[in-house]
């Protein structure tokens, strides 16, 4: 417990974070990429084709991790926003800033791959089902946070405003999901489920697990690096950053 408290206090210094995070970022990204490559290759080539969907189900190995991560990323962003607002930890602001574009990209990938997957499976490019609709709304939420951050001129104010919006969005996400589910039971004649059967044979499930874990590690690594960038930008007028810049000059 004491160890955790020390880390928490240390996190108050963006500089400490920057100096610590480098190797972690590289390591996590490397592990992540390995996991992704292994998982995708496994899912593409080795897993057996699905009885109903044929080979297009392999898109799942991309779509599901991207979808899971875009949601986890938003929750992380919302929690970081709460930390910023409650404890005024500057680093939390940098996490929000770094996480938003990553989550948004994953969200777009999830939507596009979902649409492509839908075409051979259900015959249409777009389907308003629970997952796709809430994913679309999630993209709008991401966009709002990024747009608000951009629009406010003062850095610190922009960070706090974006944090408020991220927290409000995070609280709203369960409400949105429930209402979208409702909306569907009201309107849909047939309900689509993207993971066809909850009991997937191990040969299909394992590469998915590897892929998801790989994506998580990759996300973590890239996020750490991105937060490091934000630290540099925010602290660009300090002595330690200037020294660092000078040391990197050709």
């Amino acid at each position, binding site marked *: 417990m004491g160890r955790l408290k020390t880390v928490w206090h240390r996190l108050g210094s963006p500089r400490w974070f920057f100096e610590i995070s480098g190797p972690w970022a590289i390591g996590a990204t490397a592990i992540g990429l390995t996991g992704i490559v292994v998982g995708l290759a496994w899912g593409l080539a080795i897993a057996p084709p699905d009885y109903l969907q044929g*080979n297009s189900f392999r898109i799942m190995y991309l779509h599901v991790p991207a979808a899971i991560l875009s949601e986890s990323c938003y929750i992380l962003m919302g929690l970081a926003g709460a930390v910023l607002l409650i404890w005024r930890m500057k680093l939390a602001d940098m996490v929000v800033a770094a996480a938003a574009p990553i989550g948004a990209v994953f969200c777009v990938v999830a939507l596009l791959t979902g649409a492509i997957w839908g075409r051979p499976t259900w015959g249409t490019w777009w389907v308003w089902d629970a997952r796709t609709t809430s994913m679309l709304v999630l993209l709008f939420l991401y966009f709002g946070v990024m747009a608000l951050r951009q629009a406010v001129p003062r850095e610190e104010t922009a960070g706090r405003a974006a944090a408020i919006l991220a927290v409000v969005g995070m609280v709203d996400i369960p409400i949105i999901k429930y209402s979208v589910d409702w909306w569907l039971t009201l309107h849909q004649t047939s309900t689509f489920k993207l993971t066809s059967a909850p009991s997937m044979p191990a040969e299909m499930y394992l590469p998915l697990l590897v892929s998801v874990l790989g994506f998580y590690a990759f996300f973590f690594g890239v996020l750490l690096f991105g937060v490091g960038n934000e630290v540099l*930008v925010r602290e660009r007028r300090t002595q330690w950053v200037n020294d660092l810049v000078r040391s990197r000059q050709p």
Partner: protein
Amino acid sequence: MSFASWHDFLYMGGHYPFVWSAYAIGVLGIVVTLLRPLRARRRFFAEQGQRLRRQTSLESGNAERVDASRSS
């Protein structure tokens, strides 16, 4: 291996446009997510390096002028 040959693999039982375009998008997303921060950091160091160089040359320029005005 669930495919008999490379050709079968690429053909994906007829679903090749879907599978491969989806994977292209996914890989693109991963690459973009990886490269954006790397490029941003490189750009940061380049821009800040320039700014610092300009600053020191301004300062040394001022120092020269101060010296010159002092000696005159």
